């Protein structure tokens, strides 16, 4: 099972879990499994058409899936998936 690292802003949707084990052989299946178990994550990660939102990036290991095969990127059982949302804080 691959591991998804949940960024701190989204942990309120995963019962504060920072790492979640997911099943699936591709990123799409893994995200599907993740949002099945934590449905509140869905609107933060996916648009109405089920595509990853443009302000959320997904990496498998160190690689941006947009430089691999996007949602079809294949996973290994020891793959680590990082979800990196846009954040904008800094001044106030």
């Amino acid at each position, binding site marked *: 099972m691959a591991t998804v690292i949940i960024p701190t*802003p989204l942990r309120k949707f995963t019962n504060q879990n*920072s790492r979640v084990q997911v099943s699936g052989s591709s990123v799409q299946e893994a995200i599907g499994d993740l949002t099945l178990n934590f449905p509140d994550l869905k609107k933060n990660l996916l648009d109405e058409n089920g595509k990853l939102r*443009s302000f959320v990036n997904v990496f498998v290991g*160190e690689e*941006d899936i947009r430089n691999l095969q996007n949602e079809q990127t294949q996973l290994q059982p020891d793959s680590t998936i990082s979800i*990196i949302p846009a*954040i*904008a*804080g800094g*001044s106030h």
Partner: protein
Amino acid sequence: MSYKDITFSKEELARYNRHIIIPDFGLEAQQKLKAAKVLVIGSGGLGSPLLLYLAAAGVGTLGIVDFDVVDDSNLQRQVLFGVDEVGKPKVEAAKQRLQSLNPHIQINVYNTQLTSKNALELIKQYDVVADGTDNFPTRYLVNDASVIAGKPNVYASIFQFEGQVSVFNYTDNNGNTGPNYRDLYPTPPPPGLVPNCAEGGVLGVLPGIIGSLQANEVIKVITGVGEPLSGRFFVFDALTFETRTLKIKKQENTPLIERLIDYEQFCGVKAVERKIKEISVEEFIGWQESSEDVQVIDVREPAEYAEANIGGLLIPLATVSDKANEIERNKKVVVHCKMGGRSAKAIRELEEKFGFENLYNLKGGITAYLQQVQQTST
């Protein structure tokens, strides 16, 4: 003037000695620092450590853009400022502190909001941009203006326990320019989905950590020492102490950035929340005692109202737009809730949708009011 022509006084050489004696840094890197001009946008949480370290390191010219004034709630993380500076413009307070730290550098301050109108003119005067702002419209503005002006943008961002650092639009010695913010995030989140620090909070030490890393990257970009964080994206989780350095690339479908746009419209949010008018409990009681004709609106829920109220007209927050016609326009209107948060939201909504100009938020809400009344009666 080439950095090679830069000279140092005896005092400066003594001050920068610990830089100069590092074999891979040396006098040459110190000359490059002194020759460099860095524009720091935002002098808050990230800007504080960033500016302190860049000034201490001897960056010759620092520009600071911020329109805000120092507030009590800043001191939990904005270590540039102290109690004496509360109420002062941040850029003025910052300049004073930094100049006392290092009198050998030039500090230019811009007590203004960075906008599509002034951004290019400002950025063109500097070599490196360091983005420590706090909202998406300004993030995209800084990115696009840096790309158009051809300047590296050393980026850092924080939220709650999460920090991010990268160097965008960096051109290496071979003339290859790395990715920029839009290659990473082509479009911003819709309004409301991602809160800012004022709404979501931030651990005070986090900007200290992340802003220091940002200063490190600024120094590397200027001096050419080491490998700048270009084409890489650093992520720090203060809770798990997990760090990751992810690879990022230019994306083929990122639209060409050719001109600045209306970034508030692009992001669907205002870069700066307009301040609403406030009234303290003491002032409010003063109005009541002088029989000033004031309408009081209570935006809490009916159950809360039934428990305790100060005779205001009950219009729960969710219904303010529907009942806007019940709110007076020709006299002062004090809006309150329990603590002051919901009423601020109600006032913003009424001002934006209906153009009210006579609404005052009761600071501390009914809680503060009842406390005050109890104190004076005992």
